[in-house]
């Protein structure tokens, strides 16, 4: 064998070696994307703080995040004088709960008012419960609500007075999902389907026991 042939063979072997590595890397990447935790919602684990608040529930008693440990929480901000957009999201979450069936026993919808001036504890609880028996309506001091909203970068703004009285409140439409230890795990938007939200909740509920 001539020296030039040996060099050519060596170059071939190196090229084949590189190709093999590239294939392995591609396969690994493909395997990774099919990992069990293929979230369909936005994974925010480690990017947002744990659930913490001190608000007021339907009976007028204080409710803290600590009382909800052991439950997967779906947190949504709204206001009861909202007859269209908020009901659409609350109905959406209700359908997800129905879809989950018995798995939903440790899932809780939290509806937090961004309009405490009008939303008394009783009104906000009645409003939330009108959508799902597993929904809890919370209100409280504006400062406590602002603190909770800021914690999750939720914005809200009271609109101008309407002719004839009343006003609207513009607010973030996201749904924050927390695990049973109160850790922020996922963010859903009203545009996510029932199926996608239920899919991720099934994974979250399924992984709780082993973690």
């Amino acid at each position, binding site marked *: 064998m001539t020296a030039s042939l040996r060099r050519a063979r060596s170059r071939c072997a190196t090229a084949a070696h590189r190709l093999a590595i590239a294939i392995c890397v591609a396969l690994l990447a493909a395997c990774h994307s099919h990992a069990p935790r293929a979230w369909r919602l936005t994974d925010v684990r480690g990017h947002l703080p744990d659930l913490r608040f001190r608000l007021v529930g339907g009976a007028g008693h204080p409710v803290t995040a600590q009382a909800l440990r052991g439950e997967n929480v779906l947190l949504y901000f709204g206001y009861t004088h909202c*007859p*269209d957009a908020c009901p659409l999201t609350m109905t959406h979450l209700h359908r997800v709960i129905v879809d989950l069936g018995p798995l939903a026993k440790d899932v809780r919808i939290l509806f937090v008012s961004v309009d405490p001036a009008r939303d008394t504890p009783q009104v906000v609880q009645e409003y939330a419960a*009108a959508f799902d028996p597993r929904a809890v309506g919370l209100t409280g001091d504006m400062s406590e609500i602002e603190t909770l909203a800021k914690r999750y970068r939720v914005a809200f703004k009271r609109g101008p007075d309407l002719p004839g009285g009343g006003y609207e409140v*513009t607010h973030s439409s996201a749904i924050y999902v927390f695990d049973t230890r109160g850790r922020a795990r996922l963010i859903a938007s009203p545009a996510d389907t029932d199926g996608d939200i239920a899919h991720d909740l099934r994974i979250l509920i399924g992984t709780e026991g082993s973690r």
Partner: protein
Amino acid sequence: MMRAIGRRTVAALLGAALLGAAAGPVAAATIGVSHAWIRVLPGDLPAAGYARLENRGDESIALVGAHSGSYRRIMLHESLTSGGMAEMKRVSHLTIPAHGRAALSPGGYHLMLMGAVRPVKPGDKVSITLVFAGGATETVTFLAMPANTSRGP
């Protein structure tokens, strides 16, 4: 000066009269309203009214408002979601194109129904009069449904 104002006023009145005369009877015959329902919320919280609107005529028609003996105040509203923010705002009208459709539907245009004269419960039938540009009206029976209704009738 007086004459100029007078002319403008007369022209405006004439215009309104002509529009009213033209749109009134035409609209009544050409507008179809179906699947009308109300999402009932607890207590005296405002409710939302939805319906499908069809214009069988050759001219576009604008829904400009509504009134009812069952609610003290009704406004035409639109919900908008942009940049992750949900907003509801009052709108002046909803256009139904010629030979076309438009909808008052969840997450979009809707009637905001305020100040129920008597409590409205799921299953109730509520009469609401839709008002169109030009003065035409259409009185429609809306079916009251529970808060967590996904799809209307």
